[in-house]
């Protein structure tokens, strides 16, 4: 191969300009990107305004019986409650009150009043029923009767069209006056005068009636308060007597900040949705569409190289993704601003906190569009290249959208905050950062995340782009023939045309069993453990661990291999390793253990708290020195070494391994190995070790060195927990290892240095390991 020529920017520009012009001539793209946002939000705004007009709240009907017995101060003002009893005076119009003894009542109103009277009779019956007996253990027939009355009252209320029925007892005003008189004369009576009948507010369970009843209740509350203050005045006491504390809640948030909170939730969601949509449709047209129309061949024969084609297409998609997001946000912002002004001019007291974000917020939004758009553009392009046709391409949108929406939902949940680990996750990092920046655009601790978020996002975009480029280099992807899928034929082929080693489908099946099996077993296992006596739990958990690994990792891999492939020896790399390879593996494990331990210690701040405290404690007892060493070595060192190596470095690695693409297989199997460890810091740790283990397997062509490494590595971890090594070491050992009551054993830097040199030397040796011959 000759040296790779540099990227020809001129060709990228020519292709980019053509793709851009092509998309701009496409009516569908233009509609999605330009017309939809420009029209959608104003249309939605107008729609909402119209809805507000059409569906403005109808006044609810309150029927009041016995209004003639109302004491002063004046509760009513004509056919409504007096506005002074409402905190918002406009609320008074939302309730119409129908009372007896008014001259010009309509026929409907008269009917309602008679209904109200019959309901009152039913209610009196109900009160009588409740009042005569204790309700702690009522006889069943009484309960039945009560239920019947309740049902009857409810139905009557609903049918009569009365939302709230207020019953003022006869002589209510007189009863109050009686008390007033007592207060005025300061007389003490033997009997408490408070036993007089009180007003009743009756309401059915209907939602609208309940809202109305709450309004009525508030009216009565403020009316009652005023009554009380009048009494105090009459008694020569201060009006403030019933509210000596009266703590005031003062909300001090700038209106801008408050609107930032609203936008902080809304804008990131729209940003993500629109960058995905804006990227996906052009990407499908640019990649799958090109295949479908037969122009891909022409383009590949042109002098532009494939990487140049991908970059040009990526830039085009990026432009559309960014443009869609910007146009959507601008249109939404302008619509919202206009609506706020409109509503504000009609009703100045209405609380609306939807002012557009401040300039600094806008700048941050624009900055965060770029990593998101780059990421989604690259992913969409890769997916679209994989698709045979535009129709197939569009099928890939839903799974992408579902994953993205899950991430968005995760970001919106209150427990998820911007922290080191979250900042480097795709999609989640930018959303969380933007949310913080919209509330406080200059906070130093938030800005500190900016490089990590942008860096991680661009790394993900770069990876996705690399995937797209490799798709463009793959003959099988570029020239995939449309094939008819037949489930029966496929199943039959699976049986009759067994490949020597598993394919990606088999590996994914195996991984899915391992991953979902763990989650499914979690609940029953926990239940089983808690049913045991406390002293037996740790031992049972250890055996459960052994069983789980065999059941979920080893067994599926073995069963799938024996049924689906012909060469089990090659699949699991069962050929013997040289003693040298085993020695290198064991030495590498011993050398890497302190280094990895130290690294994880140093990175503790980065990862979120993994397990809850209780589980951590249980894990400590389970793996602590109370258990016999052989059992722990079996459960934590030997079983995982066998089960996980057979699955990940055997089945999965062989499935992904293609000639010349061994490194990709190592990375994929390491990521899979990490994924089954679930807890973020363990995922990281396992992925890291998975890379070393994969390298061991690929370089030596045998599973045994990796198995040795795994067993030694985990074995050291187990023994390190149990033995107080400094005591057994000679005096000079304390500059290698030190012991601390809090953190347990820790390695000192001279030992780390030695370990680093040893690990580097061994990895170097492994890298240059003579390539194993094929053992087919």
């Amino acid at each position, binding site marked *: 191969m000759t040296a790779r020529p540099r990227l020809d920017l001129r060709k990228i520009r*020519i292709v980019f300009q053509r793709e851009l012009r092509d998309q701009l001539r496409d009516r569908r793209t233009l509609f999605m990107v330009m017309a939809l946002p420009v029209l959608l939000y104003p249309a939605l705004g107008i729609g909402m305004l119209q809805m507000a007009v059409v569906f403005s709240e109808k006044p609810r009907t309150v029927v009041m019986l016995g209004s003639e017995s109302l004491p002063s101060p004046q509760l009513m003002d004509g056919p409504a409650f007096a506005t002074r009893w409402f905190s918002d005076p406009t609320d008074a119009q939302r309730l119409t009150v129908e009372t007896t003894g008014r001259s010009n009542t309509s026929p409907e109103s008269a009917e309602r009043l008679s209904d109200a009277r019959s309901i009152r009779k039913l209610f009196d019956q109900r009160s009588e029923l409740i009042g005569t007996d204790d309700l702690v253990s009522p006889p069943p027939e009484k309960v039945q009767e009560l239920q019947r009355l309740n049902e009857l009252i409810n139905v009557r209320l609903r049918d009569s069209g009365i939302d709230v029925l207020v019953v003022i007892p006869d002589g209510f005003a007189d009863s109050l006056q009686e008390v007033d008189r007592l207060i005025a004369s300061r007389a003490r009576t033997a009997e408490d005068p408070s036993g007089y009948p009180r007003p009743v507010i009756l309401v059915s369970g209907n939602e609208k009636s309940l809202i109305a009843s709450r309004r009525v209740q508030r009216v009565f509350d403020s009316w009652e308060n005023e009554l009380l203050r009048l009494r105090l005045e009459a008694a020569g006491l201060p009006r403030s007597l019933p509210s000596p504390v009266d703590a005031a809640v003062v909300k001090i948030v700038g209106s801008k900040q408050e609107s930032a909170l609203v936008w902080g939730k809304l804008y990131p969601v729209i940003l993500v949705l629109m960058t995905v949509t804006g990227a996906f449709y052009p990407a499908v047209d640019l990649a799958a569409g090109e295949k479908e129309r037969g122009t891909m061949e022409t383009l*590949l*024969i042109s002098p532009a190289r494939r990487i140049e084609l991908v970059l040009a297409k990526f830039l085009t998609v990026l432009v559309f993704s960014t443009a869609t997001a910007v146009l959507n946000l601008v249109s939404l912002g302008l619509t919202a601003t206009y609506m706020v002004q409109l509503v504000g001019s009609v009703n100045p007291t209405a609380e609306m906190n939807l002012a557009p974000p401040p300039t600094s917020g806008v700048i941050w939004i624009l900055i965060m569009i770029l990593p998101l758009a780059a990421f989604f553009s690259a992913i969409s392009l890769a997916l679209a290249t994989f698709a045979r046709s535009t129709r197939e391409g569009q099928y890939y949108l839903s799974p992408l959208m579902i994953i993205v929406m899950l991430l968005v939902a995760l970001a919106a949940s209150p427990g998820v905050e911007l922290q080191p680990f979250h900042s480097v996750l795709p999609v989640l990092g930018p959303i969380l950062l933007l949310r913080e920046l919209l509330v406080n655009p200059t906070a130093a601790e938030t800005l500190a995340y900016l490089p990590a978020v942008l860096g991680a996002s661009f790394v993900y975009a770069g990876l996705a782009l690399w995937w797209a480029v490799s798709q463009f280099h793959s003959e099988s992807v570029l020239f995939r023939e449309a094939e008819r899928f037949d489930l029966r034929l496929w199943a039959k082929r699976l049986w009759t045309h067994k490949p020597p080693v598993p394919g990606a489908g088999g590996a994914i099946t195996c991984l899915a069993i391992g991953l979902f099996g763990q989650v499914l077993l979690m609940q029953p296992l926990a239940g089983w453990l808690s049913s045991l006596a406390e002293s037996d739990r740790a031992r049972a958990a250890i055996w459960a661990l052994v069983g789980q690994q065999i059941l979920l990792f080893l067994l599926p891999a073995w069963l799938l291999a024996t049924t689906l492939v012909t060469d089990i020896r090659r699949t699991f790399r069962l050929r013997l390793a040289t003693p040298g390879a085993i020695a290198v593996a064991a030495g590498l494990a011993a050398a890497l253990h302190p280094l990895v331990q130290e690294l994880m210690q140093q990175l503790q701040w980065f990862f979120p708290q993994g397990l809850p405290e209780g589980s951590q404690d249980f894990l400590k007892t389970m793996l602590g020195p109370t258990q016999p060493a052989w059992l722990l070595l079996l459960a934590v060192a030997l079983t995982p070494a066998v089960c996980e190596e057979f699955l990940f470095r055997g089945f999965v690695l062989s499935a992904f391994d293609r000639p010349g693409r061994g490194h990709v297989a190592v990375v994929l199997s390491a990521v899979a190995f990490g994924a089954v460890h679930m807890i973020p810091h363990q995922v990281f740790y396992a992925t890291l070790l998975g890379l070393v283990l994969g390298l061991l397997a690929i370089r030596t062509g045998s599973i045994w060195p990796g198995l040795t490494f795994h067993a030694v590595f985990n074995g050291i971890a187990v023994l390190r927990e149990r033995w107080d090594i400094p005591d057994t070491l000679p005096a000079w050992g304390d500059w290698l290892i030190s012991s601390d009551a809090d953190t347990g054993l820790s390695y000192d830097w001279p030992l780390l240095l030695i370990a680093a040199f040893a690990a580097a030397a061994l990895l170097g040796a492994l890298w240059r390991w003579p390539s194993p011959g094929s053992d087919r």
Partner: protein
Amino acid sequence: MIEVHDLSKRFPDLQQGEIVALDGVRFNVGPGEVFGLLGPNGAGKTTCLRILSTILTPTAGTASIDGRDIVDDPDGVRARIGFLSGSTGLYDRMTARETVEYFGRLYGLDEDRLSESIERIFNTLSMNEFADTLNSRLSTGMRQKVSIARALVHDPPVLIFDEPTTGLDVLVARAVLDTVATLRDEGKCIIYSTHIMREVERLCDRLAIIHRGRILAAGSQRDLLAASEQPDLEEHFFDLVSQFENPVNHDTTTDAGPACEAGS
């Protein structure tokens, strides 16, 4: 100009193991010559031509075009060939002129040379009437003319035609054949694949009969006919294919096998 040595292509197939699309093909083509690749559908013609135009990489064997190796210098190869197939698509949302300009610019032509080249080609192919019409509004024949113009815009020394008359009516097909003949007379090195005998008879100086990825026979038309007892090319072709499919029923002396040399 075109030299092909033992070119093989195997496609991995998860279900069937491997598909051999091309098996030890060798031939060479000189300037001013039309070399015919005659074979039924699925014979490996398209695979062979795609390898020559560097879209696919060969599993084994080498090939060079105008002295450039297809694996070591694919960019150099692509700059020296014009490729046209019957299934080549056009961008619907571009005009004929824009299409040709776009590819001309990708080939690195400067604007003067580009407009000169376009004017010449559009005149020769009488395309000026629809030069500024969107491709989507063109007829099949017009579209094929645009494709030809696209393939010729950078005046390549080597031209690869992969069944260029597929789906064309008689008149347009004849125009395409005339163009190929003209190009040959201009001294271009041309490889022309087809399954239509008459096209081969009319155009090709030498040809290879290809079936199931192998060259069954190669040489000039006269040589091929002389070697067989058949009256015409079509019968000879049919004879070779059926011999290959049922070798026991036939005399094996004429079995040329994959190593059949088609040297000039």
